[in-house]
């Protein structure tokens, strides 16, 4: 695998393979010295043209645990503010010797565009409303490992609640979840659903109350405040009334049901309940798994491919 631009370019076997490698990474992360030399001598550059803390730190710690060298570039403190084009930025960084770029950009398709301007591998860390493939992989990893059904989501029902239309997480999750066999239901007002949703192989519903008692996974998306200014929803009060996870609603969840959120959470908006009060919450587990899954992605793209090499530790 040269790049990871979209979940659509991954076969189900690719997905299952990455999740299997992630198990090895989870084991490494449990060691007293959580570091292996697998990517020694490789350079991973995180280039973030849009603010992000958790994804950038997650990738960077993944790279470091595999002994890769890391470089960080963020648009707010860079020559992008001096008008440098995306192409020039990438060509310049590439000239310093980069094996993989981890790219976050506000424009859908930007990581794909970047592949024209460098020979390095490109890993999409979120582009516009388009894709966030490592989020989908870590979400699938979290769900399969929680249910102990390794590699399959067959028969599971997953509700994704919130702003689907503007969400790269939703686009990636829907693709991975459905291809692993899950039934996905989208819970949102029509103004927050993508156009032509009927072609996506999912169902939709207009209130969280219709699904909360029956789903295996309740996946809450972050509600973005600026959407209200554009008249997409009437107001936060109405949104919370129809779509927030409240203690009353949480009480209706099945005992085995998982609650997930890609973060950062809006407490009091989509999460009116305290997640630490929810036994089914996997929200922090998602963050932990994120490091393992990103290690697996980096290793799959830059590594030797042989997981046996992961047994070797690094001298403490």
């Amino acid at each position: 695998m040269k790049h990871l631009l979209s979940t659509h370019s991954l076969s189900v076997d690719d997905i299952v393979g990455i999740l299997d490698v992630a198990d090895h990474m989870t084991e490494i992360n449990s060691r007293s010295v959580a570091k292996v030399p697998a990517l020694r001598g490789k350079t991973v550059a995180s280039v973030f043209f849009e603010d992000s803390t958790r994804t950038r730190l997650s990738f960077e710690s993944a790279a470091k645990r595999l002994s890769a060298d890391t470089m960080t570039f963020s648009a707010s403190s860079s020559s992008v503010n001096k008008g440098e084009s995306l192409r020039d930025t990438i060509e310049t960084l590439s000239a310093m010797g980069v094996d993989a770029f981890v790219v976050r950009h506000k424009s859908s398709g930007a990581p794909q565009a970047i592949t024209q301007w460098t020979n390095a591998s490109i890993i999409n860390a979120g582009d516009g409303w388009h894709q966030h493939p490592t989020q989908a992989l870590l979400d699938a990893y979290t769900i399969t490992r929680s249910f102990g059904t390794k590699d399959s989501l067959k028969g599971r029902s997953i509700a994704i609640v919130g702003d689907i239309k503007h969400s790269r997480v939703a686009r990636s999750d829907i693709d991975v979840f459905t291809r692993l066999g899950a039934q996905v239901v989208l819970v949102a007002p029509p103004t927050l659903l993508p156009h032509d949703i009927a072609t996506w192989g999912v169902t939709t519903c207009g209130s969280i109350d219709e699904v909360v008692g029956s789903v295996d996974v309740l996946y809450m998306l972050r509600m973005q405040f600026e959407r209200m200014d554009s008249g997409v929803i009437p107001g936060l009060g109405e949104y919370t009334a129809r779509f927030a996870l409240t203690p009353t609603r949480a009480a209706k969840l099945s005992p085995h049901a998982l609650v997930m959120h890609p973060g950062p959470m809006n407490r009091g908006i989509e999460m009116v309940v305290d997640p630490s009060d929810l036994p089914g919450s996997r929200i922090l587990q998602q963050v932990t798994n994120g490091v393992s899954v990103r290690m697996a992605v980096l290793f799959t793209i830059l590594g030797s491919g042989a997981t046996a090499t992961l047994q070797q530790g690094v001298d403490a």
Partner: protein
Amino acid sequence: MSKKSIVFRGGTVINPDGNVVADVRVSQGVIDAVGPSLDGDTVIDITGSYVSSGFVDLHTHLREPGKEEAETIETGSRAAARGGYTAVVAMPNTDPAQDSVMVVRFVRERGEAAGLCEVVPSGCITMGRNGTQLAPYESLAKEGVRIFTDDGNGVQDPLLMRRALEYAAPLGVTLAQHCEVSRLTEGAVMHEGACCSSMGVPGWPSIAEELMLHRDIELVRLTGAPMHFLHLSTAGSVELVRRAKADGLPVTAEVTPHHLALNDELLRGFNPLFKVNPPLRTIADIDALKTGLLDGTIDAVATDHAPHASHTKEQPLDAAPPGMLGLETALAVVNTAVNADPRRIVEVMSWSPARIAGINDRHGRPIAVGEPANIAVWDTTSVWTVSRDELASRSKNTPYHGMEVRGKVHHTMFRGQLVVQEGKALK
């Protein structure tokens, strides 16, 4: 003007009253003989090709003044000539915009200086294309401007649009609308449909075009002023124009080659070369546009030739400007995409656009003795592969690079002078 005569020998002459195999002789800027076995100082064998009036493009962005790094009037004229065009209507979204006598004169004079085709300036509907104040139609009409448009922007204000039509009507000019309700296309990147939905980019809904088209058809009904509709892109638009014509309203419409040939699936790879405004739409839209072109609902093919410097297209899809080259590939793309007979091709690429542009005293004329020698020689059978490196345009943003097409322009004659021979520009 050269006194030497040129004979096009053995081609099929396409005229409104019929096709005939005949030689065509040109001398001193006019056609001086049409018939069998003509001789002249220079004889060009065009057996197997068609000879027709030169093409007329209602919709060309020449970028000068203002964006000369993308195109100049000279390079755009050369591209036009290579495409078989003997006249192009220069869109007014230059910098400064074509809303004054000074700028309009500049554009016309630069076109004359290039001498490759007639550059016919259009004027703005509103000053600076800002949609707030009417441009001076009468002063510009006196300079020969016949088409007024804010192309790139639709005129949003219905009151202003009504007044523009009322004011322009007695001047014998035509207002041309870029139909786009801008509130419905804020941030829009491509056609709103299944493709944009999965790609996660903001959609440009068909309704944004159709709403303004519908409004303007009703304003034409109210005012009686003629109106031309630029680059129709949706099946709904074709139907609206069809009904307006059935009602006898004085409306005309154009379609671009790319809206006949390319669809929104091509954007799946996020390639900005396929970004254009209005956007590439669906197969169903393409089918409706083709039907409209063949049944007369759509009067003309117009290129919307929109050069952009490479660095501006080397950006993510949402940041790149819309627009693609069109002049040098128009005939081939239309001929490849649409099953049109050659006479309909001439009708939509020469006769009708010349009439809409108000230049049918000198373009889109019959191939007949005494007519000005604005002529294209072309065929519908040559197969060739488009290469961006062989284009005369200063820019390279063709979406057809590497694509195999059918139909080729061989020679173009402008005012009796051969400006393109065997596909090569002579100046």
